């Protein structure tokens, strides 16, 4: 209903994507549709942008193009099954989404997770985070008009995907989590290949800085663009690299450590600039921290079971359960209401992308269209995560 009114109020031209010059509103404003099919939105995000010349007056995100009612679907799936639907939310950190759900179910069952499973989970989380940031780095550079970094990023990302494929059997949506541990033990080659990857990555990450970070055009395009102040970041609920780029310490791995994050040493990256460049730096530095975590854990995978003994049919006790993890994009919260049955009564996900998107209008006003690409790139929007 809301959307329909909006469309009627702003005139029929909103529906024809960029198609009609008759859409010029009062005062020489131009209403332009970015998306749902547009190279910079990386998915089916629809932004209705009011322009004055090239300057953005207002951005109105229209959501729902990829809404699959995942939360509702989860209500009819068992506690073992619903975990894998969440791979399709933020498909770039699929493993971390699964992790959040598994943690929530385990909290309800009060399961004790074997130490081996904990370490494997964290290793996979961090590898996923690196893979996700790699893709973001390439896509961000592509948004700003540099095509080549994309291929460089994919070169390293492929290595991670191959490691995942060997152990989990899949490359993107791994579905490796089960309540109580992980589905299979790691592949015999896993440790060797991860060590090879660490070596490869340490050589290549400096290349990223040479190619993009130090580039004067890139710095001009991102510095002072889309400034999100600390207060705004808190009030919009921005988490992850977006929040930390604005100086908000919001790393769940530090604030509410889960699994073995309290036993490994890594730094929470905080930049105070709040602009696109700060958000960029946070992610680049986070990749180095993730590698640090992997380096610490890869030789110290404890022996033992990779899965706790669980019943065939899981039943959560009556009550409400909440767990949160740090995905590549920010804080993912999973809220389960149980009536004591085999399926959840109600599930709600608090996805980082939705909150980060809500800041888009605020920080883009007064910028140029070109800036919008830098801002959207550093917000790192994954549309299925926003729409669910």
């Amino acid at each position, binding site marked *: 209903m809301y959307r329909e009114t909006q469309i009627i109020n702003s005139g029929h031209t909103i529906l024809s994507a960029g198609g*009609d010059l008759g859409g010029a509103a009062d005062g020489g404003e131009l209403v332009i549709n970015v998306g749902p099919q547009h190279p910079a939105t990386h998915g089916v995000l629809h932004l209705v942008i009011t322009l004055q010349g*090239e300057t953005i007056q207002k951005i109105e995100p229209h959501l729902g193009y990829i809404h699959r009612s995942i939360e509702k679907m989860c209500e009819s799936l068992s506690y073992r099954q619903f975990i894998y639907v969440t791979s399709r939310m933020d498909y770039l950190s699929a493993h971390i989404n699964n992790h959040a759900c598994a943690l929530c179910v385990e909290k309800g069952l009060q399961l004790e997770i074997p130490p081996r499973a904990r370490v494997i989970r964290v290793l996979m989380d961090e590898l996923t985070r690196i893979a996700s940031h790699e893709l973001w780095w390439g896509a961000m550079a592509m948004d700003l*008009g540099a*095509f*080549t970094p994309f*291929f*460089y990023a994919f070169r390293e990302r492929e290595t991670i995907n191959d490691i995942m494929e060997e152990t989990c059997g899949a490359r993107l949506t791994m579905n490796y989590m089960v309540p109580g541990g992980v589905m299979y033990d790691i592949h015999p080659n896993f440790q060797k290949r991860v060590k090879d990857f660490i070596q490869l990555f340490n050589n290549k990450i400096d290349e990223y800085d040479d190619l993009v970070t130090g580039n004067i055009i890139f710095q*001009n395009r991102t510095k002072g663009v889309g400034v999100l102040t600390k207060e705004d970041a808190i009030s919009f609920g921005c988490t992850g690299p977006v929040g930390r780029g604005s100086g908000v310490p919001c790393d769940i791995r530090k604030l509410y450590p889960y699994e073995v994050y309290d036993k490994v040493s890594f730094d929470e990256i905080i930049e105070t600039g709040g602009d696109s460049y700060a958000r960029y730096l946070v992610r680049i530095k986070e990749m180095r921290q993730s590698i640090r975590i992997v380096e610490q854990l890869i030789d110290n995978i404890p022996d033992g079971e990779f899965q706790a003994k669980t019943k065939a049919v899981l039943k959560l006790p009556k009550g409400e359960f909440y767990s949160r993890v740090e995905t590549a994009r920010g804080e993912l919260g999973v809220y389960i209401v149980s009536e004591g049955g085999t399926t959840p009564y109600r599930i709600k996900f608090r996805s980082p992308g939705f909150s980060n998107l809500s800041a888009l209008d605020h920080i883009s006003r007064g910028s140029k269209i*070109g*800036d919008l690409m830098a801002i959207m790139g550093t917000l790192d929007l994954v549309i299925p995560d926003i729409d669910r």
Partner: protein
Amino acid sequence: MFSLEHITNSIQQWLYSTFNPTMALILECTIVMLLAIGLFAVLGLVLVLMERKVAARMQIRLGPNRVGPRGMLQTAADTLKLMMKEGLTPNGADKFLFNLAPFIVMIAAMLILAPIAFAKGFQIWDINIGVLYVSAVSSVSVIGILMAGWASNNKYSLLGAMRSGAQIVSYELSAGLSIISIVVLAGSLQISDIIASQQTGWWLFRGHIPAVIAFVIFIIAVTAETNRAPFDLAEAESELTAGFHTEYSGMKFALFFLAEYINIFIVCAIGATLFLGGWMPLHIGHWEGFNHIMDYIPSSVWFLGKTFFLIFLIMWFRWTFPRLRVDQLLSLEWKYLLPISMFNLLLITLIAIMGWHF
């Protein structure tokens, strides 16, 4: 020594001895026209393939390698595909201007070809204001781009055309000033004179640092003028989908695409002519033996070698740099390049007057 000059001369003699002068002139024009169109087709095929191979090399991949030997027929296959595609005209478009625009861009590109010397004595029209003619005609293509953007009746296209207009008009100034600095050194606007003045050495080396500055500014300005990354704001794929040619398809799109590559070739040819001595071989001072060996390389090879080196430079930029923002693009021109090139022109004039160049 092999030279195209002998071939052209003998053809002309044969034509004028066989036919009456009017008929011979018409025949000559036809031959030149066919050659120009043939050159365009070949350049389009070669440059597109070259771009894809260069891009592939920089992006650690192979590039086209399936159609023909080492993928050499890939662009021919693409052209065939584009020719068979339907050329759509949007309903709301101004049909006449929409269909006219690609031809204006293409014709402007073709016209600039006239005064370029491809080899010793191999030039279509050695007009005495050659350099002025080139800078005048090259600004015509912006009309085609604006026309395409406006007639498409698409907001993205309009924004792209608007950017393109501002960009080409601005960068024309720096490009023009860099060209003038060489005109000052050479003392002539005629292309053949400018090349002849570089008999003893190329202006890039003979004009001290100011000539190098002029060359760098020229390369930056023509990259912007041909709408190539990092100045491809008119197309800006990730911002404006494809800018002014969003609505074009099939052969009409192919004309824009071809014109882009022809324009790159032309500006690089001009750059090679002005700064790198055109078809003049590389001569170093009194190294007689070395100079003699260099003379044995045909002049067309020298010209094409220099031109393709510059083309490679421009392609290298495209696959390395991110895109500038529209206000940064304009401030780069008006705040940095234009004042620098004006001051540089003064320096070069001083050098030319005092005869300080080598």
